[in-house]
């Protein structure tokens, strides 16, 4: 099994505010770990972020208001899963409830030298 980070990007309202999440999205998030297990994977944990308007950026000595990269869809949360391979990880990541945006799948750096598949 390989570990992947699922990065959730959601569209933010003007000024980096996030609207309240609809209840069905919250319910789907609560059900997500169970659905991932049903499909043969595992959720190892995750974090949810306050909207990007609350972010502070530090470049060298300069401290500024706002996120490091300003985008229409901002990083809203990250969770880590275990999956057999990229196809499996994509299948699991596609279960993520999304309002208006998408997810990015990234393998975690691991000490694994077995090559193409597990």
């Amino acid at each position, binding site marked *: 099994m390989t570990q992947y980070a699922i990065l959730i990007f959601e569209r933010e309202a003007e000024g980096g505010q996030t609207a309240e999440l609809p209840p069905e999205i919250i319910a789907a998030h609560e059900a997500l770990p169970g659905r991932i297990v049903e499909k043969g994977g595992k959720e190892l944990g995750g974090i949810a972020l306050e909207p990007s308007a609350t972010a502070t950026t530090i470049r060298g000595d300069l401290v500024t208001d706002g996120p490091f990269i300003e985008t229409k869809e901002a990083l809203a949360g990250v969770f880590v899963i275990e999956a057999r*391979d*990229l196809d*499996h990880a994509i299948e699991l990541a596609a279960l993520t409830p999304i309002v208006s945006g998408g997810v990015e799948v990234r*393998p975690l750096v691991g000490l*694994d030298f077995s*090559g*193409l*598949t597990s």
Partner: protein
Amino acid sequence: MLAATVRVTRDLDAAEEAVQDAYVQALTRWGRDGVPARPGAWLTTVARRTALNNLRRQRTLRAKLPLLLMDVDDSASVEAAVLDDAAPIPDDRLRLIFTCCHPALSQEAQVALTLRLVCGVSTPDIAHAFLVTEPTMAARITRAKKKIAAARIPYVVPAAADLPARVDAVLTVIHLLYATGHTAHSGENLVRDELTGRALDLARMLRPLLPSEPETAGLLALLLVHQARRATRTDADGRLLRLEEQDRSVWDAALIEDADRLVVGALRAGPPGRFTLQAAIAALHAQAPGYAETDWPQILTLYDELLRRWPSPVVALNRAVAVSMVDGPAAALAEVLELEEDGRLAGYRYLPATKADLLTRLGRHAEAAAAYRAALALSDNAAEQEFLQDRLSRTLPP
């Protein structure tokens, strides 16, 4: 051979190394003992054995590093695979091509990897075919291999539910290979034949391996029709010829017949996909006694269906040509102008070229000349430029 060896190593670089090693061993052994009865099988067996030995050596090393966990189940299956010499090698090639054409890789990486790993074309040759420097191509291939390893793109034939979409990605790569060879810059005939030949080999290989996917027959049929007409694409001086100017008696009737049989079979298999529809259109053209005598209404119907299945502005542009033959150039021009407005084909040289052709047919020569000039500015292919220049000169008063 590489495909069979990857299954042992699960690592493309290790497999390539083992295959090269096998060739080196063959040089000394065959020189001494003579060439074996089945040289290909001999090489594959040696490459897999070398790969397995290397793998065992690595495992011993890994066992000494307590932090690194070894996947025990996997080692058992790898040994089973290598000991089972009757393992179907075609499946390995199929796995390899699905890995190379995985949608998580960029399309240019998919094409390069397929040529390098499935067809065994050398990196300098691939660089030459795609007009990039050798280090650029080498870096592209290395990056793709690193992603396959780091993101763990699996070495498997996709599940049935995903198969049609994944087959489409593979067929797209093969079609792109053929198209690159087909429109290679002038004076690059060697590259051209190499690429089109590889693409045809791949399409032929894929069909029996994926009998449940009619689109594999569609793609092969499409390439066969292109191939049947390749001799008349240009004249003796290398100038491009329009379909209506081509000498149809030179077309390879046997290939066209093969293509037609494949199209009929694919159409019977269910709702046709985009490659089958394109092949059906190409086959209709190929079987017509002349340009004017072509079954244009039928071609337009096929384009309508193709546009429904594959709503691409390029398809819409090609459909406009069929419209001009059924409803006249004015109706077609209206559709081309709409496409121009839409903007998605900005920079696509066939749009102004098609527009210019329709304007010429409508007798609007000054506007046609402007459109030919716009097409010329967008073309980087010598044969095409000459063709457009010739068309342009005909729009001007003598």
